[in-house]
C-alpha cells in the first residue's frame, strides 16, 4: 500500500530529473568502485551504486525488484563480501599493493577497448529512434503469478542452483590442512 503511494508521489514529481540525478549517482559510484585501492571503500561505493540503482528500479515502476535489490544485493551479498575482506584481513597493505598495480600502462589498453565497445553500444541504442513510450508499473502480483506459473521450472532450477551453491561453498570452504598444488610444491619446500 505504502509502496504504491510512494510510486504515485514519484510520478507526480518531475520524474526524469529524478532519474538523471540517480543515474549520475550510480555511474559515479560505479566508477569509484572500479578505481578504489581499498577494498572496503570500493565495497561502500558499490553499496551506494546498488541503492541508487534500486531507486531507478522504483522509478521504472518495479517496486518489488527495487526492494529485492536493497535487501539481497546491498544487504546480503555485500555483507558476504565484507566478511571475506575481514577474514582475509585486507587493509592498508592491500591498498598500497593495489596502488602499485593500477598503473596507466596497465589500464590504458582495456579502457580504450571498453570505450570502443561503449561507443558502439551507445550508437546502436540511440540509432533506433523509437517513438517514446511511457514506462508502466508492473506490480509484484503479476510477477508472482508469472513466476509460479509459466516460470515454475525456472524457479525449481534456481532452487537447485542455490543448493549447488550451498553444497559447493560448504565443500570448498572446509578448513583442511593446507594442500599445496603439485606445481607449487617444488617452489616451496616447507
Amino acid at each position, binding site marked *: 500500500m505504502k509502496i504504491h503511494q510512494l510510486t504515485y508521489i514519484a510520478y507526480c514529481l518531475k520524474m526524469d530529473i529524478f532519474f538523471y540525478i540517480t543515474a549520475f549517482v550510480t555511474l559515479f559510484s560505479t566508477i569509484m568502485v572500479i578505481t578504489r585501492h581499498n577494498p572496503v571503500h570500493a565495497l561502500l561505493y558499490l553499496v551506494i551504486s546498488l541503492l541508487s540503482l534500486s531507486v531507478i528500479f522504483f522509478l521504472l515502476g518495479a517496486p518489488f525488484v527495487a526492494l529485492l535489490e536493497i535487501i539481497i544485493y546491498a544487504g546480503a551479498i555485500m555483507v558476504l563480501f565484507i*566478511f571475506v575482506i575481514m577474514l582475509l584481513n585486507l587493509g592498508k597493505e592491500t591498498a598500497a599493493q593495489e596502488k602499485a598495480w593500477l598503473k596507466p600502462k596497465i589500464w590504458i589498453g582495456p579502457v580504450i577497448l571498453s570505450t570502443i565497445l561503449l561507443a558502439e553500444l551507445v550508437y546502436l541504442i540511440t540509432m533506433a529512434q523509437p517513438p517514446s513510450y511511457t514506462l508502466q508499473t508492473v506490480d509484484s502480483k503479476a*510477477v508472482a503469478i508469472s513466476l509460479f506459473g509459466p516460470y515454475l521450472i525456472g524457479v525449481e532450477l534456481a532452487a537447485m542452483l542455490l543448493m549447488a551453491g550451498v553444497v559447493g561453498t560448504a565443500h570448498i570452504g572446509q578448513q583442511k590442512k593446507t594442500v599445496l598444488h603439485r606445481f*607449487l610444491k617444488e617452489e616451496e619446500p616447507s
Partner: protein
Amino acid sequence: MNAPISIEMVMLLAGILFILGIAGVIIRKNIIFMLLSVEIMLNAAGLAFVAAGSRWAQPDGQVMFIFILTMAAAEVSVGLALILRIYHQHKSLDIDKLKEMKG
C-alpha cells in the same frame, strides 16, 4: 504521467554500467575487485531486463531479474569461498599469479 523516462536513457545507463563492469574486470588484478565488477555487470543486465519489462508492461523482465539475483547469490557464495581457499594456498589474490591452467 508527465515527462516520462525514455527507454533509451535507461538502456544507455545499463550499457554504460556494463562497460564499466567489464573495464573493472580487465583492469583490476585483485580477485575481489574482479568479483565486484562482475556484480556490477550482472546489475546492468538486470536493469536492462527490468526496463524492458516495464516498457512492454510484462512481468517477465522482473522474473528474469529475480533469476539473475539468485544466480548472483550462488555465484558470490561459491566465488568468495574460492577466494578464501586461493588466499590460503597462495597467500595472494593476484590474478596474474594464478596462471597454472595453461593449455
